[in-house]
């Protein structure tokens, strides 16, 4: 299998307009996502992963500022502060929302919403309806859902409907922004499995953004760990999960309670910095148990092992 880049970012930074200037929440991100793979971005809240996801899906709010380059399927969508997603949104990239109950149009039935999207992209109505049924079948929703309003569906069904909607324009890339965070443990597994299956069946590129580290092991091919607006570690999922290199990643993995284990969890001291006060140099430095003087300079993301990059002076 030849790996072709589906998404490529070069020094991508994203900031928001605030009262006193621009607050950069994503800093100099360089990533490459290969076609037909699942790429996970994990991190805690406020680390900028959702902003990055929005940039990929073309949903940055209007008060956002950008810098650097972002290419999706060969189209440059971000160049400096200019963004142009025309023809990319929908046709090439769609996203699966975090909260399907607010992301589905409450005033239209699921069928109407699907048909509207299909019609816009591919025309005629009968085919559109047929296509909508296929999509529902694909996400394992009963066909009568086509006449339901979103509020008549349960949480899990809504998320499936949202997935169907995201698949409707037949995109090449899907950005899933914490699609499981509002679901309970059982449904979380269900939705993740569904996404994985769909990605394989339809040959999609899936960008999966989550804070649920456990989930990544099931569905991801590549993992990027974000901390305070930067990517601190990136690589093939098995390597990152089983042999994390960055101290933050290591500590984070140890902090997850595992079924049946009752030993005291290890914790990361302190709390993540806010974008208004990122520390100098390595942004994990104030919380890092193994930091040293070098850490006052900003580290670079470098490949220390095959297909495994980390941004830490300890591996430089």
């Amino acid at each position, binding site marked *: 299998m030849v790996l072709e880049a589906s998404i490529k970012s070069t020094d991508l930074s994203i900031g928001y*307009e605030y*009262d006193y200037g621009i607050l950069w929440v994503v800093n100099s991100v360089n990533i490459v996502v290969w076609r037909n793979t699942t790429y996970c971005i994990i991190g805690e809240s406020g680390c900028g992963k959702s902003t990055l996801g929005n940039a990929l899906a073309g949903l*940055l*709010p*209007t*008060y956002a500022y950008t810098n650097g380059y972002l290419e999706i399927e060969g189209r440059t969508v971000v160049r400096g502060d200019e*963004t142009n*997603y025309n023809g990319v*949104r929908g046709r090439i990239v769609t996203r699966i929302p975090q909260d399907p109950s607010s992301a589905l149009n409450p005033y239209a039935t699921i069928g109407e919403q699907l048909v509207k999207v299909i019609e816009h992209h591919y025309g005629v109505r009968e085919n559109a309806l047929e296509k909508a049924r296929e999509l529902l079948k694909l996400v394992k929703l009963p066909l009568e859902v086509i006449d339901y309003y979103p509020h008549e569906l349960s949480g899990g069904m809504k998320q499936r409907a949202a997935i169907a909607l995201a698949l409707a324009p037949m995109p090449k890339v899907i950005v899933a922004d914490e699609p499981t965070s509002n679901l309970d443990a059982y449904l979380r597994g269900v939705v993740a499995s569904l996404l994985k299956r769909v990605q394989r069946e339809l040959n999609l590129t899936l960008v999966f953004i989550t804070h649920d580290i456990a989930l990544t092991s099931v569905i991801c091919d590549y993992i990027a760990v974000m901390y305070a607006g930067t990517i601190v570690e990136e690589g093939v999922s098995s390597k990152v999960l089983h042999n994390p290199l960055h101290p933050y990643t290591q500590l984070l993995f140890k902090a997850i309670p595992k079924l049946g284990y009752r030993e005291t969890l290890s914790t990361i001291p302190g709390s993540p910095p806010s974008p208004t006060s990122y520390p100098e140099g390595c942004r994990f430095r104030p919380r890092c148990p193994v930091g040293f003087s070098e850490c006052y300079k900003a580290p670079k993301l470098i490949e220390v092992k095959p297909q495994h990059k980390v941004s830490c002076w300890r591996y430089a």
Partner: protein
Amino acid sequence: MDSLALSINAWRKRVTFRIGLVITIAILLAGVAGGLFPLIYGWDIGFRIVSESFQPPSLKHLFGTDDLGRDMFTRVLMGTSRALVQTTIVIVLSLFIGLFVGAITAYYKGFIEKALSYITELFLAIPSILLALVFVILFGRGALTVSLALVASWWSWYGRFAYLQARAIRDLDFIVLAKHYGLPGVYIILRHIVPNIMSPIFIQALTDAGSVVIELATINFLVGVGTTSIEEPDWGLMLGYGVRYVFNYWWIPLLPGLFIVLMALGFALIGDSIYEEMHPQLKRRWRLWF
């Protein structure tokens, strides 16, 4: 606390706020002047015949003179202080009544909620003119009577607003818990509900001040119940009385209206700017992004 910060922000960033503030200060000064006139120049200053009747606006008589030869500008200024006092009464009283009735309505579920919200609806439906007439009959004619009548109808807007706001927060955990601990209703309403619902209502009230001025003027214009006498320099009455001269001496009805517009506009601009500051989605840069 945040309202001051908001105001400062609004002042720094919004031309509308600055314009509104300038207008309001000008109106306030005019009102103070109008209030002081009788003290300085004698009680009959507003009624004194100073010149020929129907003088058009000039430097000597900025707004001209009326049908008896009284200086319109003096009278309009005196009207300003009246309008300011009336508006303050209406806004402050309605705000307090509305806020507390709304909070109580939302807090006590069940019968009290139903009864009070029906009463609020009832007062919303009663035209303020009708209440003004009732009050005039009950308490006699006068500026205060009409202000109170307007309070009697106006509070219901805030009552409903406060009720909707309070209903949105009454099932939040901190209120449910406070109730659960057995804290008295008065405490919960005063310490939890009212502080949490009041700021949007305050802003609304500030914006509404303009509507109050207009409503007062409309009532007085239409039925002239506002004062004990046509002699009183009331804006609405001056307009209502001056209407008959509109074709020949246009300044008599039209110039006092200018002050109504200014006062309404001043409050509205300030209220609106603060509202926009409070709602960041309205103030941030927005371009057509899709």
